[in-house]
């Protein structure tokens, strides 16, 4: 009996819930920058469920559509931060190689620890198997900040260690963890961090050799595992190697390279690894844009343009090279575009609300505005292999949109709202500047 009543109540409840959420939403009369197609000066974007159902100049709207009058507004694809840690908890310090238990001598003294030949086989500073998708915290306040600045997606990676882990392409809805994942693993994040003189690897050479060895081990592991699976009986089974598993799962490697010497070095290193790679940082890439284009290695440009450290000794004279890098770094995107290289932007240490200003510097240095928009949207999706489902305003793609009052890179432009998976989010109110109000920053501030 109770069961029957429950059965009756359920569909009724569902019907009430359905009546509250729109079947379809139409943004009408806006300037629509589709990125994958021409700009519509007065267009309409129709969303249904979590997808873009249609986009065009004169769309016939279905009866169940909620119409939002978007006249005077501009609609862009939701912005994508191509390399981030948003949504992930603060990473623990990367694990060094297996620690040797302290030997205690006969006299009860602790002998100094002998780091016995801790070479590459001990997989130092490696957590390649860690998946960002498993760690996503929808309550991370940085998600709100990013969204308020117009970002609907971020590609977030664990960030410490040589093989730091596998990233995930996230929608910044900040609700259900599983729902936020668009694609995982998005790639393997690597750093070239060294960890001190006496610990392997203690030098840049050592890190590079280690990465190379793990890559070779991965190739061999695959062969071994395949051979064993074909003929297990009578054969030694290979050891499970989670570090290698993590590398094999990753569709691409993210390698750091900032100045031109590093970019040149990593282009050759990546080519030698014979795995798909992406370089990140790349402030000095303007000097080798043609080589980057030839290599077909995509590049993620850090929007934190180099600047003189605030703590620097004012009397210290910087080298011409350093000055030149600071001056010319914002021209890197323009140079990359001219050479035909693939690139996208990422936040680096720039707070989300500063990112558009940082992109404006690249535009001032010669990057056409349309390419700047692309580098914040479709290019990032292409680099991560999800351009078939997001990154532009196209029928069938995920309904991630940015709606602004004014041109995206204008100083005075504000984010009106964003759509993520077809759900509308208003920007959080901006924090009042500390000092003016006489109150320390709290709540949403970092």
């Amino acid at each position, binding site marked *: 009996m109770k069961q029957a009543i429950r059965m009756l109540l359920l569909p009724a409840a569902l019907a009430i819930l359905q009546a509250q959420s729109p079947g379809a939403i139409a943004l009408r009369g806006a300037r629509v920058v589709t990125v994958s197609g021409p700009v519509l000066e007065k267009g309409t974007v129709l969303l249904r469920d979590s997808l873009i159902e249609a986009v065009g100049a004169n769309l016939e709207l279905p009866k169940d559509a909620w119409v939002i009058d978007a006249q005077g507004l501009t609609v862009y694809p939701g912005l994508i931060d191509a390399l981030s840690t948003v949504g992930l908890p603060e990473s623990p310090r990367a694990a060094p190689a297996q620690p040797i238990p302290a030997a205690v001598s006969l006299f009860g003294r602790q002998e100094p620890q002998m*780091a016995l030949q801790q070479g590459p086989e001990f997989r130092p500073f490696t957590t390649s198997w860690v998946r960002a998708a498993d760690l996503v915290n929808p309550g991370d306040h940085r998600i709100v900040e990013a969204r308020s600045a117009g970002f609907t997606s971020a590609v977030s990676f664990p960030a410490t260690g040589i093989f730091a882990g596998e990233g995930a392409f996230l929608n910044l809805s900040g609700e259900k963890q599983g729902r936020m994942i668009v694609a995982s693993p998005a790639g393997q994040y690597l750093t070239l961090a060294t960890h001190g*003189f006496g610990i*392997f690897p203690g030098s840049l050479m050592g890190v*590079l050799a280690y990465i190379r060895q793990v890559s070779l081990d991965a190739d061999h592991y695959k062969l071994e595992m395949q051979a064993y699976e074909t003929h297990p009986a009578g054969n030694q089974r290979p050891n499970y190697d989670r570090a290698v598993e993590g590398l094999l799962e990753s569709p691409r490697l993210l390698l750091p390279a900032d100045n031109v010497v590093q970019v040149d*070095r990593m282009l050759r290193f990546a080519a030698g690894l014979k795995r798909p790679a992406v370089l990140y940082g790349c402030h000095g890439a303007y000097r080798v844009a043609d080589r980057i284009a030839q290599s077909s290695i995509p590049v993620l440009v850090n929007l934190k343009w180099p*600047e003189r450290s605030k703590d620097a000794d004012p009397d210290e004279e910087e080298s011409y090279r350093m000055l*030149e890098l600071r001056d010319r770094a914002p021209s890197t995107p323009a140079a990359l575009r001219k050479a035909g290289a693939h690139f996208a932007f990422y936040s680096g240490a720039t707070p989300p609300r500063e990112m558009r200003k940082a992109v404006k510097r690249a535009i001032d240095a010669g990057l056409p505005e349309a390419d700047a928009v692309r580098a914040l949207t479709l290019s990032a999706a292409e680099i991560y292999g999800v351009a078939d489902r997001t990154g532009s305003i196209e029928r069938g793609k995920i309904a991630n949109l940015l709606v602004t009052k004014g041109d995206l890179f204008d100083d005075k432009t504000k984010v009106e709202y964003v759509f993520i998976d077809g759900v509308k989010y208003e920007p959080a109110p901006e*924090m009042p500047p500390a000092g003016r109000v006489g109150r320390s920053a*709290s709540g949403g501030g970092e």
Partner: protein
Amino acid sequence: MKIHVFLLALPLAAATTVIQDANVLTITKGSFRGSILIRDGKIVEAGEKVLVPEGARVIDAAGQYVMPGIIDCHSHIAADSINEGGVSVSSMVGIEDVLNPEDPDIYRALAGGVTTANILHGSVNPIGGKCVVLKMRWGKDAQGLLFQGAMPGIKFALGENVKRMGSPGGFGAPGLRYPASRMGVEDVIREAFTEAREYQKRWRDYQVKVERHEQAIPPRRDLKLEPLSEVLEGKRYVHAHCYRADEILMLLRVADEFGFKIRTLQHVLEGYKVAREIAAHGTGASTFSDWWAYKAEAFDAIPYNAAIMVRKGVLVSLNSDSAELMRHLNTEAAKTMKYGGLSETEALSLITINPAKQLGVDQRVGSIEPGKDADLTIFDKHPLSNYAKVEKVFIDGEIYFDREKDLEERPGREIRKKALMDKLKAQEKKSDRLERDTGYQKQPGRPQ
């Protein structure tokens, strides 16, 4: 005073050049007053009377001295890391991976007349990383610095630097690393080559299986053991840092036992004690002119070391192991005339044809002979003089250093740099002002 680096180094290129009317020190074919004809990067002719082809660029070197570009057999410039001390055997690492073509020390080396340098891994490992031979082609990228065709090398090290990594308080490293004694150094080398032999066998066994069309997967590639296999096969030169006579003999004997040769002993400050044994093994020696007592193992060093080894039939070179000393290897060479009575040619050989032979590039560089690379240094006075300055340096027939031009360009570079500094300062002021006026705080809650 800082040397302002010549950033846009477009080396003066002309297909045909004549260095005219100089005092030519060929090193191997005597000295004379004459000219050198260069074409397409090679020395075509060197003699008292050289015809100047039409359209050739003529460099008037009257009163000046031309010698082969100096070759430094032991250097650590142009690299972004030097030592991988975390493991006892670090043969998997290589200097070639971390070259820094923008290191100003390359330019400074040119200003000292150096055209070729052997860039080595550091000396904290019994078996260290792979080395690389570079030409000082300032302005090229990392690939452009490589001395194409030079034999690959690897660094070994014996003695105090190595065993300090195993001693508490040695180099202050957080952990201790084997070995802590000279006995251990020998053991590490023996074990590594034993492993390398086993690695070779695994690959030979695999090849046999392949030839027999048997099912097999190749052995796991081990980047540490591959360079050591190459050493066993004679395909990679060993440059071994060493000081004491006992450890020198140890290394030569271990090498003999495993069937390979040490190409050069580096520093080898007690080489004079075992010069006969060194000559018998066929290894070269690359040493300092007169460094002494900076470590316990350097206590028995004498400035006659180079000369004594030369007289005993060892192929000897002088090296710098220092970005500073690299700039005056000519006067280092001169010291062997005072300490040991070497002749002028013998002294200059220590920094030209001898290191060229040690590095296996003597067919290409090291002396002024037709067919060799046009790597030449022009000094304003005899190179063995304390007062000699480098005027010009050619590599592959192109001018990579020109003292006169460098000095002429300094005011212009100063102006350019100041203009850039002012431009950036103005930009900074503007953005700071914007920040102040709009109350726009970059990072709420964080101190600036």
